[in-house]
């Protein structure tokens, strides 16, 4: 004989005070925001997507860690003697835009981290044809804010 079904599964999960999860921004929006907007733009989009898919509380630690790691890296690179040496090494390896390439690398790695973090939500959005938000407005806003915030950060650590 089959035992009684689990009644805990029959508690509603949607509605009430709980916010209904929405589709995350597309991977294209994430890629281009990270590529042109830098690590802070990539990190911000991870936070925005985490909020949209209803897992901000779980992902907040990653968002804070990524942002803090980038601030620490910028401080190291622009405000310490060891960082000055690292910058000149980067320039000798990758040319005058070496530090910028390095920033782009960090941004793309952050995007890849966000992609892994939300891969189930991204696949589900594709599978069920969930309506994606317009990536152009958010993408352009993130690129502008990411570049400005990056420059302000360098200004702040070097003043």
């Amino acid at each position: 004989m089959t035992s009684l079904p689990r009644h805990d599964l029959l508690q509603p999960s949607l509605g009430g005070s709980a916010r209904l999860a929405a589709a995350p921004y597309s991977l294209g929006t994430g890629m281009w925001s990270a590529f042109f907007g830098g690590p802070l733009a990539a990190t911000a989009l991870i936070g925005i997507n985490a909020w949209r898919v209803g897992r901000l509380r779980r992902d907040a630690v990653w968002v804070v860690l990524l942002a803090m790691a980038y601030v620490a890296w910028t401080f190291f690179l622009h405000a310490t003697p060891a960082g000055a040496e690292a910058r000149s090494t980067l320039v000798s390896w990758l040319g005058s835009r070496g530090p910028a390439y390095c920033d782009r690398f960090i941004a793309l790695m952050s995007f890849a981290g966000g992609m892994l973090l939300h891969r189930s939500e991204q696949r589900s959005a594709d599978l069920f044809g969930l309506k994606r938000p317009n990536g152009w407005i958010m993408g352009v806003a993130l690129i502008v804010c990411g570049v400005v915030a990056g420059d302000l950060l360098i200004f702040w650590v070097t003043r």
Partner: protein
Amino acid sequence: MSESTADHDAAATLADQRHRISELLDRRRVAHARSLLSQAFAAHPDEAELLLLGARADLLDDDHHSARRTLEHVISREPDHLGARAMLLSLLAADGELVAAEQLALSMLREHPQSAWLYAVYGRVMLQALQFPKARELAQEALRLDPHEDEALRLLALCDVVERRRGADSAALQRLLAQNPDDRQTLGLVVTALIHDGQSSAALRGARELLRADPNDAHWLAVVKALTVDTHWSLKPLWPLQRFGWGGSIALWLGGIVAVRALAQADSAAASVLSWVILGYVLYSWVWPPLLKRWLLR
């Protein structure tokens, strides 16, 4: 002829009409089904099963509004009609009204707590609402109630497709294939899993089978067209980008920059050639696929 014999004949005629209309709808011959429906409605204007067939015809014509009105009408007359409520549940989920879909699923489950199928249907709503752990638990609960419930195996396979890298290897999908090797929904799941795994050629073979079985199916027609473009020989060089998606793009950019800079230390002319090759590849990946798509689907 006695009254009871006449009633019996009328019921048999109605059952026959419903069967024929249902078969026509299975084959998506909606216009023909509608003409038979209007004849049947003339004799039985408010018959619940005929109304449900009308709602199915509306759904096939993408008229969700009309289908919903019909279903709500049937439920208002027969609040316990399981078929009408199940169809309304699917319709609510398809329209993204997940809160209402959950409420309906829960009310049905309270009345039928041993229905493995209902647990699976509720799980599908949870999967659509991005509640992955609960969707998986509901699938497992459904399978505990009935280990052979197809809908639960489909849900578990969908969970695997969404949550795992190689969804096509899902154990639930293998069980479904063993149970129903000729089932269209199962083959559809396999194709979906293969697409998500980046195995376009295998997915195209499956999608063609599905389209052959139902040439009027707009969804599989679109999938076959998209996969035909993706598997075209002129796109073979783009295999890394197709297989690994944005991860492949990142690797291309980073690998390209490092390779060009490293080569520039030794031979600047070779580095220049390499940078033009990479730029050409990137342009080809941006320009050629949309042009090919237009040309092949013209």
